[in-house]
């Protein structure tokens, strides 16, 4: 019975996760409340210096404390219709609050339930579609995340170790681990990793050379976000980590499709190049769209604040564009490098 219907039972997992996160308030030390009643008390129109019209809405909110002393509290929430920095409260919203001078105030939204529920939906979908390949894929993600967190920890706790060295090591470990999950621990894994590392190193070197020669003209390193250390370091770390998956994808595709073919060296190289040529365009597109779409909110903000299109592109998108172009170098370079390595390995085999 269970065996036959276990797939349907999986659907219960996201529901269970959602409910668990909705009732986890006792785990938090900050006061958590659930909104029970909302009345919009005032709404006023405001116009900024660029004659953008927005609405400012004040809500009177009643909420029930879910941890600590419990009981009902009252607070007000003011938000703009455009929601750049604030948000409306709805009945059922769970929020963090703070008590200042005996009066409760909204601190932030509690977002763990939506995050964990979507994550669980993804896991269920992976189980249903990937079946027995699910565990391999999940393990690859979990291990890479763990390595990344470990490296960040080492980076911030050890000022003496060169950060460039730490993150270069991280990139190599990422490559080896991910390649091992794609093809297993064997010679193919070494070829894929070698080609990936070589392509990435060449791409970054070429990018670095071009940026240095042009004096970073039009690329503003000071616009790197969330800077806590040298912005230049973060700029290149983002390129290397960001491009890794796509470069591995190219190298893996070529190696896996050429490896079983019993043909001459020259033909192996030619077939590898053909596979690579077919996949590189869409892959460059994937990275480019991730980089550019991520700047939408800021770009609209710039334009609505009276900046010209050219200026907005340069200051908001310039950095991401440079990064996706250098990543694209890596994707393109991986094609001849992997094809060449595959042609060479046959000779060793024979």
């Amino acid at each position, binding site marked *: 019975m269970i065996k036959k219907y276990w797939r349907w039972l999986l659907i219960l997992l996201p529901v269970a996760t959602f409910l668990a996160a909705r009732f986890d308030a006792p785990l938090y030390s900050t006061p958590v409340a659930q909104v029970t009643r909302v009345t919009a008390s005032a709404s006023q129109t405001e116009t900024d210096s660029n004659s953008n019209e927005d609405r400012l809405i004040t809500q009177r909110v009643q909420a029930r404390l879910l941890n600590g002393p419990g009981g009902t509290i009252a607070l007000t929430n003011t938000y703009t219709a455009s929601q*750049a920095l604030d948000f409306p409260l709805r009945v059922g919203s769970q929020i963090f609050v703070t008590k200042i001078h005996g009066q409760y105030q909204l601190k932030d939204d509690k*977002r763990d339930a939506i995050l964990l529920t979507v994550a669980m939906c993804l896991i269920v979908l992976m189980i249903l579609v*990937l079946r027995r390949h699910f565990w391999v894929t999940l393990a690859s993600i979990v291990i890479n995340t763990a390595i990344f967190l470990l490296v960040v920890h080492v980076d911030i706790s050890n000022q003496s170790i060169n950060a460039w060295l730490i993150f270069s090591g991280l990139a190599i470990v990422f490559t080896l681990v991910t390649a091992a999950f794609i093809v297993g621990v064997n010679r193919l894994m070494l070829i894929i990793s070698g080609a990936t590392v070589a392509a990435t190193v060449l791409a970054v070197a070429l990018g670095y050379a071009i940026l240095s020669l042009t004096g970073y003209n039009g690329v503003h390193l000071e616009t790197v976000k969330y800077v806590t250390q040298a912005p230049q370091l973060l700029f290149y770390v983002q390129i290397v980590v960001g491009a890794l998956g796509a470069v591995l994808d190219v190298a893996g595709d070529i190696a896996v499709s050429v490896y079983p073919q019993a043909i001459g060296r020259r033909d192996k190289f030619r077939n590898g190049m053909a596979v690579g040529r077919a996949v590189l365009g869409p892959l460059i597109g994937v990275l480019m769209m991730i980089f550019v779409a991520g700047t939408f909110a800021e770009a609209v903000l710039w334009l609505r604040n009276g900046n010209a299109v050219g200026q907005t592109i340069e200051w908001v998108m310039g950095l991401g*564009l440079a990064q996706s172009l250098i990543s694209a170098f890596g994707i393109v*370079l991986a094609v001849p490098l992997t094809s060449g390595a595959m042609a060479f390995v046959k000779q060793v085999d024979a």
Partner: protein
Amino acid sequence: MNAILALGLALLTLLILVQGRYGLVTLISILINLGLMILTVILIAGGFNPVVVSVVVGLMILATTIFMNQAKPDVAGPAFVASLLVMAVFVGLVMLVFYFSQTAGFGNEDGETLEGFSTAIGVSFQQILIATGLMSTLGAIAEAAIAVSAGLATNEIQPGAGQSAMLAEIIGTAINTLFFGFFGGFSALFIWFARLSYSFSQIINNKVFVGELLEVLLAVIAVIMTVPTTAWIVHSRQRRG
């Protein structure tokens, strides 16, 4: 000389060295997509509804990515149809998730970016977020659809173990591409969290973190949906003729 232009010329050179004349087509397809993304931003800032703009432009981006990168019509056709189906479902999913996530606009960590700007600009950041979620995923949807359609067309694999292994591999590599692609941007934020010793509970409720991670999760969901959808469309076409 402008650095971006120099990088672009270098990419063109590499593309021509590897792809020959076709390298020019690849670069033009990238430039068209870039132009369309910039157009999207300009239209949104001009007051058009962000969700409508991103859906309309999204269709154009899917068409350019798929038809300019894949010359064979029996590969490009099913890939395009599958991408459209997935996109239709995905728009709904993104709207639903971002309605509840309260992650529109900017977080406390963005303070420096916002200095000197008026944020009450009369454009819904909630809808810009939906546009971002959709646009950042389209490339991955198109890529996975092409991979499946091309794989099934050339190998003539019958449904069975071989095919499911191939589909799983496509999903696996696509997940890697997305995972690292987003992680690159994440790295600075993670270092920020670690340096300022955010607690775990702070991080999983943080506006910027949750917003970004939801985008990755949704993108991966979209790719996983794309693979069986494309396989199904290819097979139903083969059965018909």
